[in-house]
């Protein structure tokens, strides 16, 4: 009896599964056909002109990039794997129309400073699906852009900013995310890694004060850089401040980046996300504060900042005030940190 009832429930479910299966098969067949067509097909002069015309239109509408071509990942000889991991040999995996567009770009546009980027557009079920080829002319500010021109020998864009051509290459695995209250504990091992001896209570107190409600016009908070598995690889505190010279200025400090392979890439991604956040908040400048939380030996971070267009600005002074002694002359125990551990400014 109960089994009959169960059958009544199971039957429509079964039908639906079959329907879905059928739709999936039809879609797969359609996709296969499109892949075969695209592998056979090559871009014509006429099509190329149309694409460039549309790209120009996009630029007139203040866009920094234009998607030239969207195609199923099976067009790539490796199913899009090289593009997904930003492997340097990605162009070799393109076939048919994709390869045609790459060659056109290389012949006509590359020397004029245009960049070509490929991105996996969707990951249904975690697997790479459709891929887009993008023509880029603006400054690469987006964290989600994979710069595929890794040779970087020509083009003013790469000369302008070598660090950035590395950061976007990891974009598919490094994601900036705000630190929320639930992740305070999770971030603690990173804090302990960069500041041995820091207790979880002190850390939690600091984050809570940093996340405390404030005017939405003057946001502050904590930003993390996470990898695909959701582990926190870096973090920094930020605050939009009112500045006499710059009006709105984006201030970042408490920068914590552990010594992992790829540290430079993680840092570049953090710089990138700070820049995006600053732009989104209408800031005209960024002030990054190093030192204090970073080891003095962190030359690589300073170099990376300079490569991203930052320069040393101002001097940071520090004096610890002992609770007991109240010395008024104050010039004895204060220390002045000068560049390159000073405040960096972009």
């Amino acid at each position, binding site marked *: 009896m109960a089994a009959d009832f169960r059958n009544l429930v199971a039957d429509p479910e079964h039908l639906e599964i079959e329907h879905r299966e059928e739709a999936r098969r039809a879609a797969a067949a359609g996709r296969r056909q499109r892949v075969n067509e695209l592998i056979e097909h090559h871009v014509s002069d006429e099509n190329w002109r149309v694409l460039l015309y549309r790209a120009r239109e996009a630029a007139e509408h203040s866009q920094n990039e234009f998607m030239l071509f969207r195609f199923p990942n099976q067009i790539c000889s490796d199913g899009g794997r090289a593009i997904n991991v930003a*492997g340097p040999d990605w162009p070799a995996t393109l076939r048919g129309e994709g390869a045609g567009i790459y060659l056109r770009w290389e012949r006509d546009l590359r020397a004029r400073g245009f960049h070509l980027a490929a991105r996996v557009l969707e990951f249904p079920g975690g697997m790479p699906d459709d891929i887009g080829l993008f023509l880029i002319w603006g400054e690469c500010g987006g964290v989600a852009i994979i710069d595929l021109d890794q040779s970087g020998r020509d083009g003013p864009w790469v000369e302008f900013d070598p660090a950035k051509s590395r950061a976007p290459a990891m974009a598919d695995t490094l994601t900036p995310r705000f630190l929320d209250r639930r992740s305070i504990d*999770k*971030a603690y091992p990173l804090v302990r890694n960069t500041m041995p001896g820091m207790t979880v209570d002190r850390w939690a107190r600091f984050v809570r004060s940093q996340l405390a409600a404030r005017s939405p016009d003057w946001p502050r908070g904590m930003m993390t850089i996470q*990898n*695909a598995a959701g582990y926190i690889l870096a973090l920094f505190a930020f605050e939009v401040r009112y500045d006499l010279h710059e009006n709105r200025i984006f201030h970042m400090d408490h920068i914590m980046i552990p010594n992992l392979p790829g540290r430079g*890439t993680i840092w570049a991604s953090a710089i990138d996300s700070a820049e995006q956040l600053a732009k989104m908040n209408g800031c005209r400048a960024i002030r990054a504060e190093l030192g204090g939380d970073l080891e003095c030996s962190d030359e690589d971070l300073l170099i990376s900042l300079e490569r991203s267009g930052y320069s040393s600005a101002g001097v940071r002074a520090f004096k610890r005030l002992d609770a007991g002694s109240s010395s008024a002359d104050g010039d004895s125990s204060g220390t002045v940190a000068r560049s390159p551990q000073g405040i960096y400014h972009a």
Partner: protein
Amino acid sequence: MSRFSLAARAGAHPVHLVSPCDTCKAREFSACAPLTAEEQKRLAAIMRTVDVEPHYTIFNEDDPAEFVYNVTAGTVKVYKLLGDGRRQITGFLFAGDFLGLTHNESYAYSAEALAPTTLCRFPRRKLEALLDEMPNLEQRLLAMASHELAAAQDQMVLLGRKSARERVVSFILMLSNSAARHGRPSDPVFLPMSRSDIADYLGLTVETVSRTLTRLRKQGLIELLDEKQVRLSKQYELREIAEGF
């Protein structure tokens, strides 16, 4: 077979020196997986393979951090000694994980093999120099590597769970997920560590861990195949427990 055909074969398949990487079982799931032949060769040139017995201390907290390791077989536990002499296990690392990455000149914790373990050992300075030279390699290592920092973050998430039952179930599921990520069977779950190691890691007593496992077994949620293997009999219910339902 004529000499000519032999020569042709040799030409088609040039003889390689056998590198430990060629036979490495962890390679597919570790940081080295996406490396090109050239990158792998450069890495192998500065690397030494080390086999260690269970309970062997790979390094101690505060030792100078001279080496970075990639676990290619076995299990390693990392722990800190607390001021009062107690030991806090902060993570377990498996084949494919990195070990010994530190911000400072010395290791921030100790590492001990739990089972017969194989490690690829890289001199830290040489590895850093190589990564500077090959930014692509650096990016690939970063994209693939899981490491003690990640293991410690897993632990913080586990410690955020309230009851012993939630913690133990979450721990077993975490090991199951991690096994799947590293290309090992996710069910039954392999628990290479002792009950007291689990207790140390989860901030529970050994008795509580044992009692909790027994209760889960009696409720038919898990099956204890032997000391070190757990079958997830009711995955859905276990996930609900882990989520705190």
